């Protein structure tokens, strides 16, 4: 049974001449109690996917096709009040920069309490305070009794992100937590702390975590399963170890090759890289979206025919015409990257 089942999702924005497709026929499921990593570069549609699940696609964009099931509910046909009652209650989101979600003129204690009031109107004020402090303790905020009186700008980035997490968990019944680049704005040492917190909370609350990031290191260290997006399409889905050991899609392989790994590249020598740039929506090649940058392409199939996401090995889905023929992956066999 899936917790979330996204079927043939398409999100479009009005363009100058024709609509621009930012999410293109995407199907993906999230299992209960798993950490699903969603990797992709800026503009690939990964944040838009999160917003689609939340029902917060920014205007003038709209979901033009597809279904998103949350349990038995189709989120896309749900009316706004029931959607709102899901948001923050069973589905929560955490953004890259918590400063954008926190209100600068209220103390953080007040803000967490405010969310709590929405969910538990029957609670007494003193009980609420207690619960807020308890939540803050749970998210690892040091000396919460003092911190509740502080304003967001008085806190460091790491603590702010912990506050955002506390707010996301306030409902107490969260089943799906979406974290959109939650550690990108943080320092390395703080990033490690926050990721650890995510993993702990995910286990403790037995929720599913959709972890959106561009950083393969974050994925490797936390995710159970990985989905790779490129130019609005899903190109590869697999278990985390399978994906890093045996990436089948040329884009995934390019990403893994171009990571600087200590000791793996000879110092100061050219690093393997994916040539070219990500196509913008509206300029995506007709066949495979990765056609322009791919080292394995052929001029017939890849140019004209869009590859489908197909299951090759068990639970390893790839959308590439040559998924089966591409040789096994070796770190630093850089020859395949430059066409």
């Amino acid at each position, binding site marked *: 049974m899936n917790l979330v089942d996204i079927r043939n999702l398409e999100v479009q924005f009005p363009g100058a001449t024709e609509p621009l497709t930012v999410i293109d026929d995407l199907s993906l499921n999230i299992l209960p109690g798993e950490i699903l990593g969603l990797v992709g*570069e*800026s503009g690939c549609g990964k944040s838009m996917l999160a917003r689609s699940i939340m029902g917060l696609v920014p205007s003038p964009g709209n979901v033009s096709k597809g279904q998103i099931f949350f349990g038995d509910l189709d989120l896309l046909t749900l009316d706004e009040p029931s959607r709102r009652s899901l948001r923050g209650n069973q589905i929560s989101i955490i953004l890259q920069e918590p400063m954008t979600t926190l209100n600068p003129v209220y103390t953080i204690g007040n803000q967490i309490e405010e969310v709590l009031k929405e969910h538990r109107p029957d609670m007494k004020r003193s009980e609420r305070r207690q619960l807020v402090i308890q939540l803050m303790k749970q998210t690892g905020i040091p000396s919460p009794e003092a911190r509740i009186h502080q304003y967001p700008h008085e806190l*460091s980035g*790491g*603590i702010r992100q912990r506050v955002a997490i506390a707010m996301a968990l306030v409902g107490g019944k969260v089943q799906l937590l979406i974290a959109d680049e939650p550690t990108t704005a943080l*320092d*390395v*040492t*703080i*990033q*490690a*702390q926050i*990721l*650890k917190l995510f993993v702990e909370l995910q286990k403790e609350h037995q929720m599913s975590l959709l972890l959106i990031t*561009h*950083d*393969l*290191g*974050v*994925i*490797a*260290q936390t*995710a159970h399963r990985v989905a790779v997006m490129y130019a609005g399409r899903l190109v590869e889905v697999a278990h*985390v*170890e399978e994906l*890093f050991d045996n990436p089948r899609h040329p*884009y995934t392989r*390019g*990403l*893994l090759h*171009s*990571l*600087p*790994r*200590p*000791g793996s*590249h000879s*110092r*100061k*020598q*050219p*690093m*393997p*890289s*994916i*040539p070219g*740039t*990500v196509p913008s929506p509206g300029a995506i090649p007709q066949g495979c979206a990765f056609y322009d940058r791919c080292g394995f392409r052929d001029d017939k199939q890849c140019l004209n025919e869009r590859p489908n996401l197909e299951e090759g090995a068990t639970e390893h889905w790839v959308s590439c015409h040559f998924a089966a023929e591409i040789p096994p992956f070796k770190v630093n066999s850089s020859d395949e990257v430059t066409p």
Partner: protein
Amino acid sequence: MTQVRESPILELRNLVKHFAMRRSLLRRSRDKVRAVDGVSLQIQSGRTTALVGESGCGKSTIARLILQLLQPDSGEVRMSGEVVVGASKEFRRSVQMVFQDPFSSLTPHLTIRSILKEPLTVHKVCLAEEIQDHILDLVSAVGLSADMLNRYPHQLSGGQRQRIGIARAIAVNPKLIVCDEPVSALDVSIRSQIINLLLDIQKSRNLAYLFISHDLDMVAHVSDTVAVMYLGKIVEQAPTETFFAGPRHPYSKALLASALIPDPKRRSENRELVGEMDSGVERETGCSFRTRCPLAIDLCATHEPVLHYSADEHLTACHRIEPV
């Protein structure tokens, strides 16, 4: 072991820069952020010195001090042995910078052509009639085509913009380029392209880089020397291979341990460093890392450690490391 050294192209001597903190409109607080607090560093010509640290450690302030966008409270910047006071044209020709965010560092209402023309006309690099040819040489040197020239920065992708930023920096044939997180604002698949370009240009033009970054893997790949900063001070400095073979300062160790290895089989459970970096507001005594340090002893609270030389030009500022 003594090594015969070239004289450094750029040298920082005991550089200090404090910022006053404003508490209220009427009362100026006496608290100071010690952004850069006695930093000495030598940059050798044709080589890459990496400056590593977390945000707020003062690494960007150092870049601004070197570029003379800020004046130090004390200490000096020396260029080929001579003290730099303010920015002469000659200094600007020798030292250039590549900025972190390639969008905000290009004047948005100028075309790429005008942006690249600026350094050429300001420094009269070439005759007026050669300017167009020179601009063409520059864009091809950074791997772009001439049809970019009539566009505006917002019409370029992040990677293309950063290439223009690099082209602008090399336009005046500098000897040193300060690269302030040159790839951290770029997409993963573009980063290695830009790093390759930087390495390529370094080789062909014999450039020195001061490579400011928080990405240790990247630093390991591009640099010859690594300096680690914590709260305005350099806490460890060593040749790159020596450093990555065995970092000594507890902070460097923690940094390396916090780096997320892109390999799910090597998940580290206990990589976490407790606490967060202080704000850098004035403290009286002792080692600024001691509040987070797993090795801290009483001495660390009372005496500030200074950088000690040991073998292999490996410098460390820590009481808990045996001096060699």
